[in-house]
């Protein structure tokens, strides 16, 4: 019989050897592929008039991402943030969001856009189906309007309607106590200013029916000179003034109104005053301006919140903004959701995010919730207080009641035809 098998290494063993070799060489690659970083894209505004807010968003995100990465990352994958400037232009925001997902391989988006930009990114999320958390847009319609609803988008931001309900409740209490009947309003002339003021007045009249609005001013957004607005209000002689001016507009308004000693002549309710960007910039911050909390490290008055504010200040040498806590909260939500889902798959994470409650230093009761039915943040710390010219600026903040907010918000949604 002829031996067919030749001495030496057989084909089988060669194959086995090659297989083993391949596995040995490939092992680190496979491991690396599994542990490969997860990219999260973030279009935000890093230039122009609101650049400070965009930068503070980036700072807060990086602060939290470092913590998550130090603790092992998202499901074992280190986070790599890809953050780009949209200049506040919606077409750029849309382009960048698409580029981040399609070209840079980002698996999730944090949308750090305000106003129109957030709606543009929302459309990208609708088109590409990528998991997206809005972190800066306060426009209620972004989540309240059912036409906007998509399963993969969430909003981790405070809302105009919540602020108005709490603010009006607080203001009505003071109006009744001090007998403030004649009111004036002064707000920026665009959708946010008109909507927020309208809602505030609606609820103020509901809580204190004898309030009367005797003067309305609508300065243009980014208007440099407020003289005519200030004199108009002074001539009307109201007992109280409501304003939802914000940022640089609010600080220049206060500086200019100070010249006319406006703040000694009436009670002023400025919802956006208690933000360090405004508090630290005003030249002579008047005592006793009523304001909602934007971000302040003394409210909620917990050690966790104070520690977070201090850690931010230590790292970036300035205090966080309202956009900062919202962005930080978004990263906390992602971290918790990925832990629960046990995966970084966008769809699974979105399912877990829906209705998720997490521990959070910015929660009214130490927790915040991503409400299931409209994918929006609720339960965050919200309240009003009065200013003093030095730290802590707003020493005593009166917390709003979330039960009352939910009731009135449901009514409001009905009146808008959203439910």
């Amino acid at each position: 019989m002829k031996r067919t098998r030749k001495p030496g290494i057989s084909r089988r063993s060669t194959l086995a050897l090659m297989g083993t070799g391949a596995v040995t060489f490939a092992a680190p690659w496979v491991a690396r592929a599994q542990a490969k970083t997860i990219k999260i894209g973030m279009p935000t505004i890093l230039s122009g008039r609101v650049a400070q807010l965009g930068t503070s968003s980036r700072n807060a995100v990086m602060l939290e991402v470092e913590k998550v990465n130090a603790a092992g990352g998202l499901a074992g994958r280190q986070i790599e943030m890809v953050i780009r400037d949209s200049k506040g232009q919606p077409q750029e925001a849309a382009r960048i969001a698409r580029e981040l997902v399609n070209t840079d391989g980002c698996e999730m988006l944090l949308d750090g856009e305000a106003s129109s930009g957030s709606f543009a990114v929302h459309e990208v999320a609708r088109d590409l189906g990528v998991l997206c958390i809005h972190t800066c847009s306060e426009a209620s319609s972004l989540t309240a309007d059912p036409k906007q609803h998509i399963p993969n988008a969430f909003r981790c931001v405070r809302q105009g309607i919540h602020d108005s309900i709490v603010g009006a409740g607080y203001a009505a209490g003071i109006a009744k106590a001090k007998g403030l009947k004649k009111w004036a309003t002064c707000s920026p002339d665009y959708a946010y200013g008109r909507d927020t003021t309208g809602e505030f007045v609606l609820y103020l009249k509901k809580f204190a029916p004898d309030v009367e609005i005797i003067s309305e001013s609508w300065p243009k957004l980014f208007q440099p000179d407020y003289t005519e607005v200030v004199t108009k209000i002074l001539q009307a002689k109201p007992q109280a003034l409501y304003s939802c001016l914000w940022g640089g507009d609010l600080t220049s308004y206060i500086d200019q109104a100070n010249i006319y000693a406006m703040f000694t002549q009436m009670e002023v309710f400025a919802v956006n005053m208690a933000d360090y960007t405004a508090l630290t910039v005003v030249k002579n911050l008047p005592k006793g301006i009523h304001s909602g909390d934007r971000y302040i490290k003394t409210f909620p008055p917990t050690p966790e919140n104070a520690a977070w504010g201090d850690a931010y200040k230590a790292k970036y040498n300035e205090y966080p903004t309202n956009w900062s806590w919202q962005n930080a909260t978004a990263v906390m939500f992602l971290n918790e959701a990925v832990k629960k889902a046990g995966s970084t798959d966008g769809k699974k994470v979105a399912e877990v995010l829906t209705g998720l409650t997490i521990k959070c230093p910015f929660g009214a009761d130490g927790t915040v919730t991503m409400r299931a039915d409209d994918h929006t943040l609720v339960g965050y710390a919200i309240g009003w207080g009065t200013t003093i010219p030095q730290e802590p600026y707003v020493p005593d903040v009166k917390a709003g009641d979330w039960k009352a907010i939910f009731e009135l918000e449901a009514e409001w949604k009905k009146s808008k035809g959203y439910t």
Partner: protein
Amino acid sequence: MTELQAGQSAQPLEVPRIDARPQRYRDVLIALVAFVLLALLPMLFGSKQLLDFVIRCAAYGLFATSLNLLVGYTGLISFGHGMFFGLGAYGFGLMMQKTGVPIPVAFVATLAMTLVVAVVIGAICVRLKEIYFAFVTLAFQMLIHSTILSWQSLTGGDQGLRGGIPRPSFLGIDLSNHLHLYITSCALLVIGLFLMRQIAQSPFGYTLRMIRDNATRASFIGIDVWRAKLVIFVLAALFAATGGMIMALFVSGAYPEFAYWTISGEGIFINMLGGVTTFLGPMVGTVLLLILNDTVTRLTEYHGIVLGVVILFFAIGLRKGLMDFVVEWFAQRRGEERG
């Protein structure tokens, strides 16, 4: 000389007429080749970013080239051309959201609406000269921008048209498919450029150049300067609106920023980059600006400085746009070869 001879010599002179047809065939050929090349791009490169880039080039390219019909060909420096870009985007978006008509109907209806607005605004503006024309167009642009901001119930104010633009399929074209949107944008770009080229090369186009160089002389030889300016103002508005519609489809919405003066500023910037003396200058400028924008914003957040330096280089260094420079350089080289 007899009377008969005198009569013979009085026959009309034989004016050599340049036949425009060969040039038109050449343009058709170039347009077809350009379209085929663009259509082949997605097969050669799988990059979605490239498709996005070309779609944006189509939107801005149509806008900038139409602005050049005013700036370069007629000498009308419009600072408010962006209003028609915004009108196109809003008109189309609103039509699709509110009425649900087929896309081609909305397209034509938007053009019709832009035509009406452009006739009214143009009739007022084109009577004015130079800086007055520039400023009144800017004023109209800001008027339209403010209207968009304040007419919240219709336009959504500063938040823009929300909820996405519905895109029912028509003739087998489904614009919610990105590839279909890409091909449609390319087709609109090529057709738009071809039509604008025909306008620029027509006798009417040469009338415009004459008005630019000497409006008084033009009116003395019987040209109705006001009417010619109005016609080109309206035509340019229609192409700008087409650009706006492409942009609205790209971002699936319309935002007040589309009608803001910065868009007009970008148009002027593109024309400066690319050059206004050649037809394709603004298109080259568009590609340049978008490449610059996309790469610079990727690398640094101080993109303003980089873009500023580039425009300074073109304005002070070259003193002309890129295409002007290239064309002159070629002409010079050819001259040297002959000499």
